[in-house]
């Protein structure tokens, strides 16, 4: 009888236990990114840009080079890094407050310039780190600490669909929205991110992967309820699937 380990923590993760809450989508996405970096053999040629948000701690967990960026500015930090090291795999990893609120100008101009980068966008419909405030992605009617009566179209407008918006730009080559609620969706998410990385490595250009991600802490839900909330509610407004793919 022989034993073979068929699934284990990837080398591109450190041993540090994720500091994220139970059931937090950041953990899952951190993990699949690390697995992909392993699979692509890029650990020694990857430079990641962490956001300001719960994932600011990403550099505690990823065992490859990572830099901080001021809140919202990760895409332009990544742009400069990529221009300095065009042969490296460079990606930014950003929450929805970071990317869709304060960082709106940065992501748009980066997309429009068509930088050869991969952007991983974690949409959990609120500001996790600061305690669950409303984000531009917060659903209509969703109660948060700054929309205690629920997000209201008249005051706050509609939730922004970053993927659909960025897909309009001619320089944007690949956009897909995924989720990480069960094994099947995690596998799809990983495939999408892999495509985003490969696009960069083969010079195709700007790729954007949006991940619908649970924030059980601020949604005040247990992880299984949070998962169900994504499957049943959030992905109704933000449909998962391929949005743009140009060779």
């Amino acid at each position, binding site marked *: 009888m022989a034993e073979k*380990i068929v699934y284990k923590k990837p080398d591109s993760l450190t041993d540090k236990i*994720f500091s994220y809450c139970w059931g937090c989508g950041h*953990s*899952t996405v951190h993990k699949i990114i690390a697995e992909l970096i392993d699979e692509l053999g890029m650990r020694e040629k990857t430079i990641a840009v962490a956001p300001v948000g719960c994932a600011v701690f990403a550099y505690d967990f990823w065992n490859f080079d990572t830099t901080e960026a001021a809140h919202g500015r990760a895409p332009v930090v990544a742009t400069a890094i990529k221009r300095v090291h065009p042969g490296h795999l460079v990606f930014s990893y950003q929450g929805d407050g970071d990317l869709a609120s304060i960082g709106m100008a940065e992501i748009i101009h980066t997309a429009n310039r068509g930088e050869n980068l991969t952007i991983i966008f974690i949409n959990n419909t609120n500001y996790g780190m600061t305690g669950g405030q409303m984000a531009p992605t917060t659903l209509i009617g969703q109660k948060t600490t700054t929309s205690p009566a629920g997000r209201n179209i008249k005051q706050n407008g509609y939730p922004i669909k970053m993927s659909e918006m960025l897909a309009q730009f001619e320089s944007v080559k690949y956009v897909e929205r995924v989720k*990480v609620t069960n094994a099947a969706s995690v596998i799809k998410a990983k495939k999408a991110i892999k495509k985003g990385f490969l696009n960069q490595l083969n010079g195709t250009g700007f790729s954007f992967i949006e991940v619908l991600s649970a924030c059980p802490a601020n949604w005040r839900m247990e*992880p299984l309820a949070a998962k169900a909330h994504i499957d049943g509610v959030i992905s109704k407004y933000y449909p998962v699937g391929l949005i743009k793919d140009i060779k």
Partner: protein
Amino acid sequence: MKKGRIRIDEERCKGCLLCVEECPKNEIKKGGKINRFGYTFAEFCDNGSCNACTLCAIVCPDCAIEVIEITEDEKK
């Protein structure tokens, strides 16, 4: 049919139970003990039906599950 088992890292597991929901063989359950972070971690049932499909490990956010495939040396 393949055979397998899993190892749950009690320190890493936060008891979110995504693996419990995922496992097609009901081989994982909510445990009875807490770890030093106060989480009630998941437990492998070891009912013999685990086939190392890795679905639990794939869905586990916290990289707490290692999956081991067991191959019989001689096939019958």
